[in-house]
């Protein structure tokens, strides 16, 4: 286990390094740089623009700039945004918890909704409720978040005022106000996410219920509820846990639309603004934070596999 952890940590460092190189390089290739964005449409003479780029340090070779950035980054200093002059680390420390909280609550909600309903569908395949669930899953899955989000905002502001607010307050400041701020966005994310979990749980559970070890358990006289919810479900959860892990990693950095619609000052919104401004020092720092969550989520999934499937322990 410790060996696995060490190996994964080393891999994580490699992934983060490659990611930072990629973003730094891509940042210089895409049209428009931060100097032009800061100058705006009024433009400037070529001489003045060159002087401005020099002031921002953009005239230095790419490798030198990257080396400088990396030197500071390994010491935990992500520098100051050229655009806003704010400390990038401080901005990310403020934005990350917002996205992280929404991702955690949304995934928990999706799991709470998705797994029991998926199991029910598998156990009662073909029943009216199973068909209804499959239909609803399809609807939840098909409606884009920017449509469902706007509907939630409208419905919440008109009929569910106790669950609606346009202003995010951290949990540490006011738990109740925090709950108001995140309940609708989390529901908007959790419904399509739970649809995926329902479908995945249902199909893997149906396969598991047809495995020979299930027949063996039944022949040995194990009670049906124990067969279904211990033996079969445990076997079926492997792919579901992988899905949840990927879902969680994607959510932390992929909440741009939801954050925009619900006015949440999270990382996705910050990245969107920074990309528009070509503020790549910020984009890299935020991307590394998101990648770290991805890696951590995958690591957790890797550790969960042997717990769910004893055969994996032997492989380790």
């Amino acid at each position, binding site marked *: 286990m410790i060996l696995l952890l060490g190996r994964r940590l080393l891999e994580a460092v490699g992934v983060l390094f490659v990611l930072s190189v990629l973003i730094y390089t891509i940042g210089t290739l895409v049209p428009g740089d931060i100097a032009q964005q800061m100058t705006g*449409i009024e*433009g400037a003479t070529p001489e003045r623009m060159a002087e401005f780029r020099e002031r921002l340090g953009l005239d230095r070779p790419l490798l030198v700039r990257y080396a400088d950035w990396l030197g500071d980054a390994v010491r935990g200093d992500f520098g100051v945004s050229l655009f806003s002059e704010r400390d990038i680390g401080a901005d990310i420390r403020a934005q990350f918890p917002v996205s992280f909280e929404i991702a955690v609550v949304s995934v928990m909600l999706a799991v709470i909704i998705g797994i029991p309903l998926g199991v029910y569908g598998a156990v009662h395949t073909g029943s009216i409720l199973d068909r209804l669930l499959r239909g609803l899953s399809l609807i939840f899955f098909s409606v884009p978040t920017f449509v469902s989000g706007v509907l939630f905002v409208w419905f919440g502001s008109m009929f569910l005022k106790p669950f609606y607010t346009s202003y995010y307050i951290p949990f540490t400041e006011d738990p109740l106000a925090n709950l108001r701020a995140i309940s609708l966005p989390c529901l908007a994310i959790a419904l399509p996410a739970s649809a995926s979990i329902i479908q995945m749980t249902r199909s893997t559970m149906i396969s598991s219920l047809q495995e020979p070890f299930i027949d063996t358990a039944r022949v040995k006289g194990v009670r049906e509820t124990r067969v279904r919810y211990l033996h079969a479900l445990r076997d079926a959860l492997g792919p579901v846990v992988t899905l949840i892990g990927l879902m969680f990693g994607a959510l932390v950095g992929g909440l741009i639309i939801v954050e925009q619609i*619900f006015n949440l000052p999270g990382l996705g919104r910050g990245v969107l603004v920074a990309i528009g401004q070509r503020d790549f020092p910020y984009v890299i720092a935020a991307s590394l934070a998101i990648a770290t969550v991805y890696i951590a989520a995958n690591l957790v999934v890797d550790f969960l596999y042997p717990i769910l499937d004893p055969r994996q322990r032997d492989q380790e």
Partner: protein
Amino acid sequence: MIFQIGGGISMPRPMLTLSASLLSLALVAGACGDDSELIAAQEEAAAAQGAAAAAQGEAAAAQEEAAAAQEEAAAAQEEAAAAKEAAAAAAGSDVDLREVVVSEKAEVYNFDPKNSAGGEFDAPLFTSVFETLVRTTPSGLVEPLLAESWSMADDKMSYTFNLRQGVKFHNGESLTCADVKYSVDRAVSDGIPMVQQRADNLAEITCTDDYTAVYHMVEPDTTFVYTIGDSTGLGFSSILTSTNSAQGTSPVGTGPFTFVSYVPGSALVLDVNRDYWNPSALPDYDRLQVRIIKEDASMVAALRAGEVALIHPTSAATTAGLRGDGSVTIDDIPTRTFWIHASKVGKTRDDNLVKALWLCMDRQALADVVYMGEAVPWSTAHPLVEYALKPEELPNYTRDVAAGKKLIADNGLEGTQLDFVYPTRAPYEDVFFEVLQASWAECGIEVQLSPVEQAVWIPKLINADYDLSSTDQGWYSNPYRYVLPRTGWQAMPDEILPELIPALAALAEATPEERPEAFRAVQMMEAENAYPYSGTVYTNTGHIYRNDLLSNADHSWYLTGDKRVLYLSLTPAD
């Protein structure tokens, strides 16, 4: 007010007076009887009057007592309020602060004016916290602000500003000429290029004394005072204290609002500056919270839920959707416009092609289809610039498809394909450009629309790397900017229209009396030669506020971009 009479019968004071009078009348009427009765009645009346007088005396005493009690209560209330404020201050909370919450679409990108590219991003913070020497008004006048008065030298080579005395920065420092010189010198040396450009004609600033600043020009300039009064040029003209070394994180100005906090993507909080030099201008609330809400649908939801008192929607459809709602007030004004640019490089170097483009543009369709009638076809100059020539008075502005087609045919331009590049951000809407595309297609000009990311569009625009493009524009305090070819946006006049250069110089040097004629001369020359850009329509833009939360909100700031005009006008509803 109730008064006690005799053994405890309560009667209002007017009733008491009326009763006494009626009794007297009854007794007088009884005088029709004998004398003894009359005397007895008179005595009774006298007694009743005496009782009434006594009661009135008691009432007066009671009134005095009540007034004294009221005074005591008021004093007690004041004491309680002071105690609450002290407790709130001690606890660091905002108990009983009268707060107004409004929404803004744009984030506050930075706190330092020297990095300000102007426009909506900087207006909420910079126009509230910082001030300029003078300010421009929607009627085109220049008004004093930090400068009480100013004068231009006879040779138009310098401006002398007499600073207001007793003005304090938010950190308690007094405003002097040294701060003015520090602010401008800093903007010129460290500002972004756009800020530096505003100072292109400024040689230096000298301080005659603590309260007299002299701006020396490089060339004669009669419009410079507009440049420093223009709220889109705050990067150059905001006055900062020379003692604040953390301008990028802690903005300190002299304005009517002090900076409290900003959470990116969430909210900007400003407090009313109770030490402001002009207390009569301050609003009837203590704290302003500006929430950043980007989507129109989210804004409307927040307004309906009562979470914000005022919103600024982008889309005409959003405004139209709220028109019938009696619980809100919609204040709008023709504000925003799009100019259409031909680069005059490559294909659009051909004047005949550009003239055909301008002749075929269907401005009325833009007003009717895109803006649902809430727009007026116009030139580049704002409709409030009364002396400007109107579209029908300008060549190549009135739609004439036949003339456009003839120009195309006579000059062998059939089948010309042009690329129209514009940014994919609000307020740009595809439908606007699709209507233009259709109107040009009627003349046989094929235009391909290329919406691109703002960051990609900017270098294309400022390097004239396009056939056709568009910029969103509004009101300018300096009318010169309605007709000024911008560096880089298109081929410059020395290549295209050399005779425009002296005409522009004449406009820059014109006195206010000479300005209308000089402006019209430039307008006419540019329209005749289809250079450098053409106007389309001015659309209504405005704010919407809840009547139960606000009783007033001034929308004139939409012209000047001076958002403090709005913030200072906000009046909480009782």
